[in-house]
């Protein structure tokens, strides 16, 4: 008897992957037809690099979605890590040490969101929005010195950080893409092969059942939000190397694109279904879509509007709740 639901689950999972994959193929065909130089080496490399930023920032969002929460603080943590790291390095703290400080602070802030929202699961979105806003404001106050606003920070970025995102590296692709690949494989293995990863699926599927199965749901919830902030901080620090200067608004695009990537990939926002492999597909979908839209010389604002419209049908497909009559 147990085989039937299993087949259904497998089908649902594969179906989602297939859908995101088909969308990617359609987009790639559309891109090669409309955008000149779509297949050129430079364009592919640049797309991969841009995808890697989004991909790293989306690791946390995928984990949060799997347990049935959403993290709106990612964009703010990206911006905060970006300016904080530059300021710390500028203040004479060794680079490695500064990175460790930023990562620890990010883990603490993410953990704080997790602790607060663990009893307020319905309000996770609002909690993370509040914590994120307060964090970015606070970091900007701390970073700004007399007469200099904290929004943009000047400073020297070490050359190795810049070469992390450099397109003409000896290995052909930007080293940052390899960082993403390593993180992606670790995340997928973490979700599939460790008891914590399986526990996250159990939690997202059914909170009460997970508790009865002795899964420490509260600790895992906090861990997920902590990891999410750490990944956002990693993305923020890598972006520092890419832009070469600190800017608090550097994470703004990630406020919603992380959610869009998770949704397009097919990970359920209500928890329990999906995985990071799907999100990677979603990230590629989004990146190619953005390339195509830029090819039509649409402004960033128009792209944002189209993205918003794109989310709606996907949400209607993937995040529906059952009719009340089914809940008796």
């Amino acid at each position, binding site marked *: 008897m147990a085989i039937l639901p299993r087949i259904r689950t497998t089908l649902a999972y594969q179906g989602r992957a297939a859908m995101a994959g088909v969308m990617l193929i359609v987009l790639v065909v559309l891109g090669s037809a409309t955008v000149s130089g779509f297949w050129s080496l430079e364009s592919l490399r640049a797309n991969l690099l841009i995808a890697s930023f989004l991909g790293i920032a989306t690791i946390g969002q995928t984990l949060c979605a799997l347990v049935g929460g959403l993290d709106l603080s990612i964009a703010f943590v990206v911006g905060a890590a970006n300016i904080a790291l530059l300021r710390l390095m500028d203040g004479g703290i060794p680079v490695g040490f500064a990175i460790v400080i930023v990562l620890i602070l990010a883990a603490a802030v993410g953990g704080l969101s997790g602790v607060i929202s663990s009893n307020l699961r319905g309000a996770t979105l609002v909690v993370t929005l509040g914590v994120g806003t307060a964090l970015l404001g606070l970091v900007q*106050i701390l970073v700004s010195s007399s007469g200099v606003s904290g929004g943009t920070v000047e400073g020297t970025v070490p050359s190795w950080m810049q070469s992390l995102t450099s397109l003409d590296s000896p290995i052909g692709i930007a080293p940052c893409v390899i960082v993403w690949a390593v993180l992606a494989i670790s995340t997928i293995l973490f979700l599939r092969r460790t008891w914590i990863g399986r526990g996250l699926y159990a939690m997202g599927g059914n909170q009460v059942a997970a508790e009865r199965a002795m899964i420490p749901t509260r600790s895992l919830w906090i861990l997920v939000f902590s990891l999410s902030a750490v990944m956002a901080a990693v993305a923020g620090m890598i972006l520092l190397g890419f832009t070469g200067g600190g800017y608090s608004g550097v994470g703004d695009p990630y406020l919603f694109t992380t959610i869009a990537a998770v949704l397009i990939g097919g990970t359920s926002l209500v928890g329990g279904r999906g995985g990071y492999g799907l999100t990677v597909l979603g990230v590629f979908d989004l990146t190619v879509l953005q390339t195509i839209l830029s090819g039509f010389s649409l402004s960033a604002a128009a792209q944002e509007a189209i993205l918003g419209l794109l989310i709606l049908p996907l949400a209607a497909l993937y995040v529906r709740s059952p009719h009340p009559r089914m809940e008796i």
Partner: protein
Amino acid sequence: MRASTLSEAVQAKMPERSGVESRYKSMARRQTSLVTPFALFAVLLAISGVRGPALFTANGLDGALIGAAPLVLGTLAITTIAIAGPAGVDLSIGPAMTLINIEIVIELPKIGVTGPVAVFACAIGLGILVQVVIGTIVALFRVSTVVVTLAFYLFLDGLNTVLLPEPAGSAPTWLANWGSESSLLSPVLYVLIGSFVLWALISRTTLFRNVRLMGADARTAFVSGVHLVPTRIGAHVIAGIFVGLASLMYTGLLGSADPTAGSSYTLSAVTALVIGGASLAGGRAKGLGAILGATDIWLISYVLGTFNFGLNASYWIEVATGGVLVVALLVGSFLASEDLVHRWPMRMFPGNRSR
């Protein structure tokens, strides 16, 4: 008679499903939802009295009125959505207000609509239109309100900048004068009072009672014969009226059109909603709480404005708003802890229940 039994049934269901005692407890708890906004209001008024007594002059009060009015009305709008629950946080409110702001200043004069009556009608009509589209998607496809309004935030925010890349234009004179009014007995006050009366009337209708029942427990509402789809769309129609009114106030305050400035109203309005004691699980939120919460937010930025933060002023407002939002959530959950711990994981995502 029937309606009152329904709402009593909702109240009785809230904490536990047993006994008269828990019903009294729940009624006592309902009153506690106003403690936080009132206490904060009193503290902020006291601080304002010390730091910026100019607030209590006729001019100061008038500035406060028009300054706080957009947020007050915007918060009332999303209060209806919060009541309709579950997890009914409307993130699209800021960009929606901006869109109507642009329409009032830029598009409507093009077709010759500048008179008060016509502009009011168009603003409210647009507010209802945006909200009905959102409500229809939420009701028909049963997608979480948060996800739909998130998508609408993106869509409208992008659309606003496409429609109007740079701040431009000027509002019709009668509307622009609202921002520079020097007498307390101004149109702003009348519109505000009119909106409160409207809210009081609407919140006594059967539709609104059904919205409350649906938010508290959609299943109970369904088996009680409430038609969920029209009720939810009705909640969004009510919200749309207040979105329109809020945009009018916002345009009066600004005097022109700005494609991006209004988006920050989302965070402020959600914070005001939470301070006002609204339960994000649905079913419980008060108009008075929303009004107080929004006034609190305005007072916080007023008090912060009396310090000389210079370049950092906007960051301090961010820290204060975000911090107050989180603290208000914690206080709210503390005041209703039984309820939240046991019900929220289930209520937020009904999908969990059936799987």
